[in-house]
């Protein structure tokens, strides 16, 4: 399971290594690729037959941003409408959310709008919301126009990117964009388990993929 390796060069002094911890939640209709996005971001892998998520799944990943290490605690939720009632448990206290839809399916975009509305009403007022139009590799079957989603995102103050978990396009970028937008003054985020444990946490198990290496420390 091993989290991704700390592939980037280590910050030379421990003093400058400020660590921020953020809780991020993924929401969206089922089979739009939420789990695949997480898997691509965290392990650099892609499973064609990614099994459905029941309840929720959890993963962590760290990115380096200037002198700050940003650690995401990612809650990947079940997409089926019926699991809706569980969602507040996961987005409560989250500092960031990625609302995912499938560009080849108009309905999933409608559902994404619903999630955005709910988040803006119920979640933390400072939450950073990103909209991800996933499966951009299926451009030939596109049903949701880029401009349409872009306009919507601007109107609602969302980050927006079209992503592809399959080709890895924009996957790291969207997480990185979120990391940039998050306030990093407060030290460990309130959503984390314990600030003290974060520094000592093992986040360095080796892994074989350099996927988010690019996003990690220049």
């Amino acid at each position, binding site marked *: 399971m091993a989290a991704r390796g700390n592939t980037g060069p280590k910050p030379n002094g421990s003093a400058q290594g400020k660590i921020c911890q953020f809780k991020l939640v993924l929401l969206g209709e089922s089979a739009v690729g939420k789990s695949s996005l997480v898997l691509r971001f965290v392990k650099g892998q892609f499973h064609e037959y990614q099994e459905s998520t029941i*309840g929720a799944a959890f993963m*962590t990943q760290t990115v380096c941003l200037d002198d700050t290490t940003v650690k995401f605690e990612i809650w990947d939720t079940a997409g089926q409408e*019926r699991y809706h009632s569980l969602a507040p448990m996961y987005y409560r206290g989250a500092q960031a959310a990625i609302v995912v839809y499938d560009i080849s399916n108009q309905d999933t975009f409608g559902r994404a709008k619903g999630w955005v509305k709910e988040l803006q009403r119920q979640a933390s007022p400072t939450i950073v919301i990103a909209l991800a139009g996933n499966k951009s590799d299926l451009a030939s079957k596109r049903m949701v126009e880029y401009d349409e989603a872009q306009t919507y995102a601007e109107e609602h103050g969302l980050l927006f990117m079209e992503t592809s978990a399959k080709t890895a396009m924009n996957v790291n970028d969207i997480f990185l964009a979120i990391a940039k937008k998050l306030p990093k003054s407060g030290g460990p985020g309130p959503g984390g388990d314990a600030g003290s444990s974060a520094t000592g946490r*093992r986040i360095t198990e080796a892994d074989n993929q350099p996927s988010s290496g690019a996003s990690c420390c220049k």
Partner: protein
Amino acid sequence: MVSFVRRSTSLDDAALGASTFTASLHSIESCGSDGLPLTPNAIKILGRFEVLRNLSHPNLCRYVHMERGKHERLMCVTETFSATLQECFDAEIFEATPMKVKLKILYDIVDAVAYLRSQGILHRNLRLSNIMLDARGNVKLFDFGLFHLTDSGCLVSFPIGNIEYFAPEVLSMSHKPCDPSYAYLANTACDAWIIGMLSLEILTGRRLWPELSADAFCINLFKVVEIAWLNSSSRMKSQTDVLDELVRAAGLDRYIEEWSDEIKSFLRQCLVIHPNFRAEVQELANHAIFTDFRRLTVRSSAKTMRSQGRHFLPIHLEAVGNADTSTLSFWNCFGEVGEEIAAIWRSILQKNASDVENLDSNSSKHLLQQSPKEVFFLWQLAGGDLDTEFRKVGLIRTKPPILCLPRLGLLEGEMFGMERDKNRAYNKALVELSLDQLRSRLQNLSPRSYYPLLDEIEKSDGPFSESSKEAVKLPLVIREKDVEYQLHRMLVFKRLLEGYPFTRSIILKEARNDISPFYRAEVWASLLDVISDVEADYEAVDKETPTATDRQIEVDIPRCHQYDELLASPTGHQKFKRILKAWVASHPQYVYWQGLDSLCAPFLRLNFCDEALAFACLSKFIDKYLAGFFLKDNSPVIQEYLATFSHLIAFHDPQLFNHLDEIGFIPELYAIPWFLTMYTHVFPLPKILHLWDKLLLGPPSFPLCVGVGLLHQLRDSLLSFSFNDCILLFSDMPQIDIERCVQDSIRFFRSTPPSVLHRSHEAKISFKVIGEHLVDDLPDMVHSASASDKLNLSRELEIHALPLASLKSEKCPRISAKDLLDLLNWHMGSPETPTSPGESPKTKVLPVDVRPKEEFQKGCVPGSVNIPLQVVLDFEQNVTTSTEFDVLFAARGKIIVVVGNRGNSGAVRGIVCIMNFTTSQLSNNDHLARLMKFPIRRFANWRPSTESCSNYLLEIKSTVLKETCISYLIRLKYTVTFGEN
């Protein structure tokens, strides 16, 4: 009961033969419109194979097994027989053979093809070399499923069938059989034409134009067709047949002159040019020329048998229709004049009979009485491997990949200049699987072993009992590889299933050891008590009408256990969808929750050819284990389940519970998929099968214990992990030793007082019989009381459901008075009880009574110690150690039940305080160290009053407590009576 003709299922004089071919590759690695990769053709073929495996007709070589090798290779095992019609044809004996014999052969062929047609399968691959004959002269069609398997040839790159037999419409359009414009009718009518051409050869003993190449043959045929068409009168054009023209062109006129009109009419019906007017195969089978041969017995499949309500399990009961039941046997057809020619036939058909006779010496004879599927199953266990067999004869060769590279590849994905792999083409070669190794492994078995009697199974004596008793002690993995043991289990379960439902109790008992993988599907169905007419139930459900749930089902299925080849095949997806839709449609009170798909997977996998049974099992399973889980609002049910689970962890592993509780790792975060899918979303299928083998024997609460068993196996990691690590651990389930997990779960289950597992939403059906199979050692605590007393008393003693809120707020489970008594080994009314306090060293429990001393002295639970609330409260204020608490420390390893007054919230709060302060005090002195060593510590509170009593079970945390843990509240009225001595 109906008598099932078992003999027809045995392997007898057939052998197991294996053949191999490769599916065509997708041109490039291409994706479907959904972005998912295309299903490999070999997997599609595997999915289509299963229906063939269940076909049963006396004139078909049964399909036994198919597996997928490397590089899209498929390996297929079927029954085979020693002689083919081709050999007889080559021996040039047809001409001299009496017409009756030839008609008998024809009838067998036509009847088998008609049967296939009734099952929706086109043969298309008839040729003399594909028609086998057994030693008794019965026709056995071989390789009849190739056209069906390959989806009309679309999935392979080689042509199927004998081109010389093809109907004109097929010859003229067969370039692209997968083309949708390729008329289905042309397909279905082709079999009749093929039969006509084949009949001509069999009846005359001559090929039409033996010297011509296939091309020239076709040209000749078209010429004939053209002439026949032009010659026919315009009124009769559509009915035009080619018989006359054909025999004339081929010079076979002299034969046809001798034939009766009936035979000619039969051939004419086959050889009608226009496919729409050609006879259906079924009509051909009913033709007047076959009157003498028509079978007496009505052919009935397991399916119809079941729909008649006689039997519901398809125990491979390929019913009736033995070739011997036709009126005329093959040899009788020869008559007196045909003695001479019959002798030649005999020499061909029975050339291997002598070998068989030699082998028949001992137990191998009995082995051959098993069905081909069983024999093959054992053959594999005895070390047989198809890949090796093919390599031995050179049908599979490994070639360095570099030699297979193309010389030129276009960007579009087309490849050129690849060396053609000869093995990729169709190879008719048949490898006979030698049973020698299997025979030698089984040679020491006495013939009696093959025929276990119900009586012997029940008493577990019999020829096998000794060795199997030994074997039961071995680990499951070893038992599952042991040929002799598996043969024994197979025979036992076969015998038992034949007697189901009357043998259900014995099946349950046997299943406690293990379940024969070969009969798992049927055994599971019997464990789930599937008894209704499953076929009719399933037929009655609407599986087709589109519903709002369809989209969800459609996106879930291609993600569900797709590593399994059958479930990944298109056939599998269709079946999957139908079963899920059927379940949703037939349970209006429930809805589709994601997870239902995973739950369905094991049943579909085991009953791939029997959707109805898979559906029945799924329904029964959910009713029993997941009552209420699929309600639209299932939250109360799941919440209660998880709260009970949490209590169970606290009961069995307080240390782990305290740790998880402290880091906030609550079951809501990880255990929903465990329970909602009964672990099918957590483990791969092979593990699920073993887990469920035991789970199905347990009552509805047993899966909770499996959860504890899982945690227990990961205990060390969990204890050292922080929240994130814990949840990561479960996001990607580590390797779990399922057999150990199952054993642990059973151990936990046995040591759990039943009331701890009490849930208000549990299925209300009685599963007593099943439950007893895991808890057979529960004492009957009220055995001597009268029946009504017993009932009232037991009601008084039972646990009462708590509101969800209090259930969730409490950390330790409550137990019922009944269970407390059981734990005390104290039996109501039995003369030797009650024992006085402290007398019984055997009890597993220490009741701690927290009522004031005076009340305690009036009456108490025997064996209990009194630590009045006041003492505890004092203890809270004075830092001195109380001697009373030493009793608790001495009770290391026991279950501590705190007993107090019911409904007295002051007492409850008091207990809470005690625990708080106890632990905080102890944290300051050396008692903490001692306390930490306690694996299980429990406190209860019991206080009889004139009206009612209360009982609390309470748990101290092993580390410093922040909150409390209260638990148990149950009525204990009767206990007042015995205390007043």
